[in-house]
């Protein structure tokens, strides 16, 4: 089901749509176990995700490590193969057609977490950026610009001026912030519609992050590029996101406008995440005990129930939904305009029946 209210007439077509996506990693057993016929459970990294990305919007994909946000991003980029489910770009399903895939690869670009590792240390900046053009066989743009001009323009847009000065540099000669700009330039050179950014600033120095975020926001404003930003930092989502999707154990548990999700969260997990953000004087903040369970053993019912503060405090029992929390899996439900959450208690309090879960992976 869509994650933006279908009733709104002014909503444009999504530029990217993900339906019932399942991504699994095969379980591994030791030799001895394998001989005894023990099969390891699969890691259900992405376990039924529906998502739309609209033109020119910044969608933050937030969650702790192991929630599947990076796997989701990589699958969207085509670096992982989904077990089932589909991805459509501009309304057309990606499927297997090489031509469509190639076009997709040109218009959806990725920005990596660690800019140092994302650049080949043996290639100059020029070569790294021009690589995209060369892979796609673009020697001239439609306006007649040469390869050098396209590279220079991309570098310039990424804030490296004058661009020619950096052509012959190697990555190790630049600072962390500059390297990330180079990676962004490499993404921009193909004039993408979508940029998928995986923790774009977390490995950069704190004082440098703001400029890179400004750059990304500027690209959205000037070039109308849609962005999917994967981050564990909700403060970053507050700074640049239009919508925020919170993931837990392979599912989206809450999605909606950033202001609504971050200042008025519905799902208990989101609430817990927000309470845990450090702040002045906050010594005795409540936090969840333990650590998120791993994706090979997902709890029955609502996957968050073993750690849910509402269950622990008895609020769920009091509302009569405890059995549902522990036994009934569920999907996203629109509980406020454009703001969806997957929580039995919250659905109950809003007067709705919980939405059914997404269909399981096709074998």
């Amino acid at each position, binding site marked *: 089901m869509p994650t933006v209210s279908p009733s709104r007439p002014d909503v444009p077509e999504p530029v990217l749509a993900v339906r019932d996506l399942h991504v699994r990693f095969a379980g591994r057993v030791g030799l001895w176990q394998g001989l005894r016929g023990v099969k390891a459970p699969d890691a259900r990294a992405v376990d039924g995700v529906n998502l739309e990305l609209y033109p020119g919007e910044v969608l933050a994909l937030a969650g702790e490590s192991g929630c599947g946000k990076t796997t989701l991003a990589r699958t969207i980029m085509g670096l992982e193969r989904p077990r089932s489910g589909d991805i459509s770009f501009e309304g057309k399903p990606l499927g297997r057609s090489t031509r469509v895939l190639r076009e997709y690869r040109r218009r959806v670009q990725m920005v990596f977490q660690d800019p140092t590792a994302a650049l080949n240390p043996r290639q100059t900046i020029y070569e790294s950026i021009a690589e995209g053009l060369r892979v796609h066989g673009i020697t001239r743009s439609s306006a007649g610009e040469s390869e050098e001009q396209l590279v220079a323009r991309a570098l310039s847009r990424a804030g490296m001026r004058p661009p020619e000065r950096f052509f012959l540099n190697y990555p190790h000669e630049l600072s962390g*912030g500059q390297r990330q700009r180079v990676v962004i330039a490499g993404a921009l050179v193909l004039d993408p519609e979508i940029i998928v950014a995986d923790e774009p600033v977390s490995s950069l120095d704190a004082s440098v992050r703001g400029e*890179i975020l*400004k750059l990304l926001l500027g690209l959205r404003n000037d070039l109308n590029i849609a962005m999917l930003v994967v981050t564990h930092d909700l*403060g970053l989502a*507050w*700074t*640049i996101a239009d919508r925020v999707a919170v993931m837990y154990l392979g599912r989206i548990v809450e999605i909606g406008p950033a202001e609504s999700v971050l200042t008025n969260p519905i799902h208990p997990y989101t609430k817990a995440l927000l309470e845990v953000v450090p702040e*002045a004087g906050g010594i005795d*903040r409540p936090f969840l005990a333990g*650590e998120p369970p791993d994706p090979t053993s997902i709890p029955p019912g609502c996957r968050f129930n073993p750690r849910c503060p509402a269950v622990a405090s008895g609020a769920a029992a009091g509302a009569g939904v405890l059995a549902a929390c522990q036994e009934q899996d569920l999907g996203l439900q629109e509980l406020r305009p454009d703001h969806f959450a997957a929580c039995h208690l919250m659905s109950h309090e809003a007067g709705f029946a919980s939405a059914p879960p997404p269909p399981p992976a096709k074998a």
Partner: protein
Amino acid sequence: MSVLSVRDLTVTYHTQAGPVPAVRGVDLHVEKGEVLGLAGESGCGKSTIVNGVLRLVPPKTKVTGTVELNGEDVMAMKPGRLRAVRWSGMSVVFQGAMHALNPVQRIGDQIAEAVVIHGEADEKGATVRAGALLEQVGLPPRRLRDYPHELSGGQKQRVMIAMALACQPDLVIADEPTTALDVMVQAQVLQLLKELQRELGLAMLFITHDLSVLVEVCDRLAIMYAGKIVEEGPSVPVFRDPKHPYTRALSGAFPQIGDRRFRMAPSGLPGDPPFPGNVPTGCSFHPRCPLAFDECPTIDPDLYDAGPGRTAACLLVPRGERVPVAP
């Protein structure tokens, strides 16, 4: 008498490219029962201070200045005394704890090792102490027999804290202890550190680049830039009302959710933190400073008095200019 007193510490590394001054004259002190936070980004020298204080710098490194632990001069200690002091006088919770544990040794043995080396107990006594330490950090004692790979990131970090407390030090230095952890686990570990610090009356030096974490945990803050301290004072006033433009910029990188000023308005600084061998003349921050003026490239500011218990190394301070807080 301060537990840790550092005066005019300079550490100059010896490299192929020539001498590199990583720390250029730092004064700091940590009192008993107090948590001092040291904030700064890469290249500012904060990790070098840890190595300098513990005398763990590589050979050929030049270290000058005074470092006193409970009044005793660390620089003048003989090797035997130094070894005794390392860990039982002051201990460290290192960055990247995941990799600081020996993967082929049970964690109980690793904790007990510190105790035995310092002659505080024999092996049996050390194991008992290790069990007690694990309980103190919130792990069941039966996990003594686990290997590091059987623990999660947060649990490994707790083991590192237990190791740091093994010999009952007066000072614990925590170098980026929660950087690699998830927010939830980070909250748990910070809570633990705070509790232990209060219970045991430890003096703690907490080093990180994450200013919001420091504000939560520390009583006082010192901000480092390019090998020097540029601002110091009680943590909440420094965070909410910074006197140095760099502090202001750094706190802008950790916006409060709900603060409308930061919505769709990321704030940062142009350029990058300078590398130790490449520090700008005059005020080392002037190339990136939004408030720099004529004298900044020529005068290197001292730490000027900036209010009760506060200092800041900015030429705007003696003039009485207020550094604006809005981004």
